[in-house]
């Protein structure tokens, strides 16, 4: 069923109780052309673009939990393409362009709000870095505007501009087309569209083994039986090393927890996404009015999909220092998600030594924005058995050749990217 103003009015007459289910709940078939492990944003986007761009529809997406239980439903919803390295800029800019048309493409409102993403700077050195980044973006055709202190004040008056501010604001780098997207809607919209094109989305189906033979992938073992597949794609975010390990692959990845926080809802106070340049802290106001915060990674290996107090203290301190008017807000909830942090902070979209087995992961804590381009390029890789040009740098072999894509220059310390 197509969603439209007419369908909305028609369903109003029946009290909105007769909307059809958004996707089917099929039993797994014994075999598929393509099995996608992981029903997060990237797995579902891959299924959608496999069907839409390549006509490949004999596909199953296997999700061990329910759709949206992973990072796709846990992130801070920020989308932007303000990167420095050419591979990352081109990829994330393609992604942003796909976001711009996504609600139409999916016939599902993902509530993209291009309210602008601002990163503040507080020292002359940081200003130089912001100018360099802005120039790099503009050279690559991406919008970037350098703002001075007064322009930042006009845009976001609630930042602490007082003489006693711990980190005085010198200015900021703004990407006007950046913004925020309703994250659950992304999972649901991609799922609905893939399902409508014939893809089986199978929830509560955990992959426990990958069967190979003669150098080829043959099947996946699941808690609901064995499923044969010509091609298998591993797209499991924080669980990358565990699932890739089932096929004997070793990866340059560690799993780390990142946490988010949401306050009680308040009237609109912030119409820009703002990132604090002096500490790891970002904030966006949701449509319901809650202020959504995130901070830095916990910084040590973890598979605990939950929040903890240490990060809370850090984030609360940064929030109160940057925007003092938040200091009396109550936090309603906080939660954690497991991110697969790579050794250079950039993702991996690649074939593997096992024929027919593909890997997509290492999205670190910034993979939500990349969801559409990830699905787009991953579908291309699976359908053609060859990398898409936009993702051709995101190889595994870059760690052997030294051609790492390291935005921060942090070296092989996953917790520091």
């Amino acid at each position: 069923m197509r969603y439209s103003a007419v369908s909305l009015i028609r369903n109003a007459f029946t009290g909105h109780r007769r909307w059809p289910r958004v996707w089917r709940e099929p039993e797994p078939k014994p075999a598929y052309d393509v099995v996608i492990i992981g029903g997060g944003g990237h797995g579902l986007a891959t299924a959608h673009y496999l069907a839409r761009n390549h006509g490949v529809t004999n596909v199953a997406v296997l999700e061990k939990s329910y759709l949206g239980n992973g990072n796709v439903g846990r992130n801070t919803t920020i989308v932007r393409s303000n990167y420095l390295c050419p591979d990352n800029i081109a990829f994330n800019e393609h992604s942003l362009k796909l976001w711009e048309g996504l609600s139409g493409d999916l016939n599902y409102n993902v509530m993209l709000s291009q309210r602008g993403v601002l990163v503040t700077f507080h020292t002359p050195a940081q200003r130089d870095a912001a100018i360099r980044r802005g120039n790099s973006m503009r050279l690559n055709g991406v919008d970037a505007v350098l703002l001075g202190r007064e322009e930042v004040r006009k845009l976001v008056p609630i930042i602490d501009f007082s003489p006693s501010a711990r980190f005085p604001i010198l200015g900021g780098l703004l990407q006007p087309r950046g913004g925020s997207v309703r994250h659950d809607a992304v999972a649901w919209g991609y799922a609905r569209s893939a399902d409508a094109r014939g893809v089986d989305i199978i929830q509560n189906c955990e992959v426990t083994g990958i069967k190979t033979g003669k150098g080829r992938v043959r099947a996946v073992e699941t808690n609901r039986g064995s499923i044969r597949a010509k091609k298998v794609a591993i797209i499991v975010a924080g669980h990358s090393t565990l699932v890739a390990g089932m096929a004997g692959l070793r990866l340059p990845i560690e799993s780390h927890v990142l946490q988010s926080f949401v306050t009680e809802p308040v009237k609109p106070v912030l119409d820009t996404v703002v990132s604090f340049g002096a500490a790891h802290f970002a904030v966006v106001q949701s449509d319901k009015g809650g202020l959504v915060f995130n901070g830095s990674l916990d910084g040590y290996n973890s598979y605990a999909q939950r929040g903890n107090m240490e990060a809370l203290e850090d984030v609360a301190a940064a929030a109160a220092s940057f925007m003092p008017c938040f200091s009396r807000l109550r936090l309603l909830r906080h939660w954690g998600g497991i991110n697969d942090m790579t050794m250079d902070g950039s993702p991996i979209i690649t074939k593997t030594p096992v024929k027919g087995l593909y890997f997509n992961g290492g999205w670190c804590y910034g993979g939500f924005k990349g969801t559409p381009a990830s699905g787009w390029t991953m579908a291309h890789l699976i359908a053609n058995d060859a990398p898409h040009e936009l993702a051709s740098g995101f190889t595994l072999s870059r760690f052997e050749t030294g051609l790492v894509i390291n935005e921060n220059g942090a070296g092989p310390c996953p917790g520091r990217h």
Partner: protein
Amino acid sequence: MRIACPWCGPRPLSEFTYGGDAAKTRPKAPEAAGLETWMDYVYLRKNPAGRHREYWHHGSGCRCWLIVTRDTVTHEIEHVALAAPQMREGKK
């Protein structure tokens, strides 16, 4: 999370810095080690869900490096030892 430092006793996490997987050992003969050995040492990690031996530095305390055995799912700490003796003996 709190780590019970052998010198300083149980201390809050904010006093420590993470040093990563303690199972990694630097190639014995750095010159002779091939690219693959270096690649493995520098980049590849086991990243288990469960028991993990890892380095922590007690920077705001005794400034010693520790080897902590911790469960990465529950964060329960099984064992804490000073890193120096083990490293001197060249044990993993």
